[in-house]
């Protein structure tokens, strides 16, 4: 059974073909990274996988099922969670509330039960809380638990966003530039966390990243894109040394 596969993905924005014939496979337990210069279409792939955009062509398969036409809110229920490049947290809520929203895909209480806050809802809420606390513990967010997002520094927000995605207990985690805006030490922490997510939690990671030190530290496979077309696929070392990749980054 294929775990995750994109076949000949393509999308047009007006007259611009932002992606053209992108195919790749992610195996379970891998860290798969997509690199490329600005505007290469990396985030567009993420938006296609989380179904915010409709592909003009191609197919997405996850756990043996075709998810090309699944509605966006169904995606986390199937086991795919994501973070955003520019941080899309709920700013006027606390870290805990943000993380708890990650549990939304596991909501089992009904509206009327919640209206009356029946014992079952209370029990389910405690269950969600326990799951959220495990993630908070895992990512060392305890001391920020009750602070509002607006009051937190950028680096912490990045981690909170990852915590929210992890709370959905995904099989596949999409990280959109996890290190952007982070300091050198924070980026190193991020590398450890990504490795832990893979080895300790057994979650497959698909990530978009610019920082080559982070990419080479954690990735099993790397795909390089330029102008919406794949130019190289292999290990971090192979891709970095690929003449087309060097050309794409340095010109010539």
């Amino acid at each position, binding site marked *: 059974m294929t775990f995750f596969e994109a076949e000949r993905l393509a999308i047009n924005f007006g007259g611009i073909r932002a992606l053209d014939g992108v195919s790749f496979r992610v195996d379970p337990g891998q860290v798969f990274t997509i690199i490329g210069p600005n505007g290469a279409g990396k985030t567009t792939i993420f938006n296609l996988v989380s179904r*915010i955009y409709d592909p003009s062509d191609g197919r997405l398969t996850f756990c043996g099922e075709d998810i090309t036409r699944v509605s966006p809110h169904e*995606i986390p229920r199937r086991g795919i*969670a994501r973070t955003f490049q520019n941080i899309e947290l*709920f*700013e006027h809520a606390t870290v805990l*509330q943000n993380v708890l929203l990650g549990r939304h895909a596991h909501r089992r209480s009904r509206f009327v039960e919640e209206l*009356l806050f029946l014992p079952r809802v209370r029990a389910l809420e405690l269950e969600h809380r326990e799951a959220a606390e495990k993630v908070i513990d895992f990512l060392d967010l305890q001391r920020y638990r009750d602070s509002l997002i607006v009051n937190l520094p950028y680096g912490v927000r990045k981690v909170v966003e990852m915590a929210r995605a992890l709370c*959905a207990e995904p099989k596949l985690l999409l990280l959109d530039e996890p290190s952007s805006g982070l300091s050198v030490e924070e980026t190193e922490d991020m590398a450890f966390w990504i490795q832990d997510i893979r080895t300790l939690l057994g979650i497959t990671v698909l990530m978009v990243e610019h920082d080559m030190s982070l990419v080479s530290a954690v990735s099993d496979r790397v795909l390089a894109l330029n102008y919406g077309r794949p130019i190289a696929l292999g290990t971090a070392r192979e891709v970095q040394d690929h003449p087309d990749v060097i050309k794409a980054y340095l010109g010539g």
Partner: protein
Amino acid sequence: MRFAFKTSYAQDLGLFRDGVQRNAYIALFLALLVLPRLVPEYLGDLSLVFIYGLCGVSLMVLAGYTGLVSLGHSAFLGIGAYAHVYFAQDLGVPWVVAVALAAAVTAAAGVLVGLPALRMTGVYLTIATLAFALIIQEVFTRWDRVTGGLKGKPVQKAVVFGLPLGHEVSFYFLCLAFLIAGLWLTSNLLRSPTGRAWVAIRDSEVAAQSMGVNLAVYKTMAFAYSAGLMGVAGALFAHKIGFLAPDIFSVLLSIQFLLMVAVGGLGSLHGAVYGAVFVAMLPVVISQARDAVPVWLGQVFAVFGREAGRAVFSLVDRFVKQPGLEPGIFGLILVLFILFEPLGVYGRWRKITLFFSTFPLYKHATFKRQKSYMRSERLR
């Protein structure tokens, strides 16, 4: 300064932060129980505060928590009021059932508004709900078989479970009970996945969607719930004013509700109630001031001689007796609030309590507003 010492997750699920807060609310409840004896002359105004409180909670769910600003709530209130009176008086349905039916009809209307509203955001949605309010007001005028049209429709006193609640004191308690129930149900929703999903939609639709929130379902739900609450408020409102006419449910009423949640403080149930107190009591205060201020100023200026006092009195008196002064003062206060206290009355209240709880150490800059730098720090 008190710190909530937490020892179990269940503590965060409670309705109150801690025992102190719970006791404060119990004290407030007891005070509200004896209030009719203390200020019998203001009972009618207090009932209106409770009804407006319910309206405020309703709009707070939609505007404050889900981020959908509506100008159509006067229509929901009207639908609730007319539906209740139609069921209870024309069809002879028992009172409680009539309220439930009014809530159901209004919630259904909320779904109808909510569905096309899914494709609209921000100011476009507000315009659409404004159009809805105008259309419904026209319906109230034309559909005279049910609404009595421009002639209006008299409302009889409420009879709940065979108990006539004609007296102002019993109506006061009825409204109080409904407000408490509304607050309880709403805070239950807000501490459940539904409430979190609403807040998520308000702060970032795309993130909410990527976490599994079905935008269509939850937005419609917010509209239906908000409208349903408004329907119940409408039923009480009908009894309160005793006579229904289409021009009562004008867009101005919607604006008043919006003012209520904005002045009270968007994004908190406290704010909804504070806003209701503000909006319902301000006319009372203004009308009192209208009589008192000229006399008072006249007395002050009388130190410059009797003539000066009389002149000031008649000048001020003529000014405050002008028609249309009330809406003017209303508007002025709203503008001042938005300028100086965007967090509303509730925000101000929190600042005051923080000042006293940290007394000698209060930092003036705690609530200082500053220009934001990061994209994600900007209010959207």
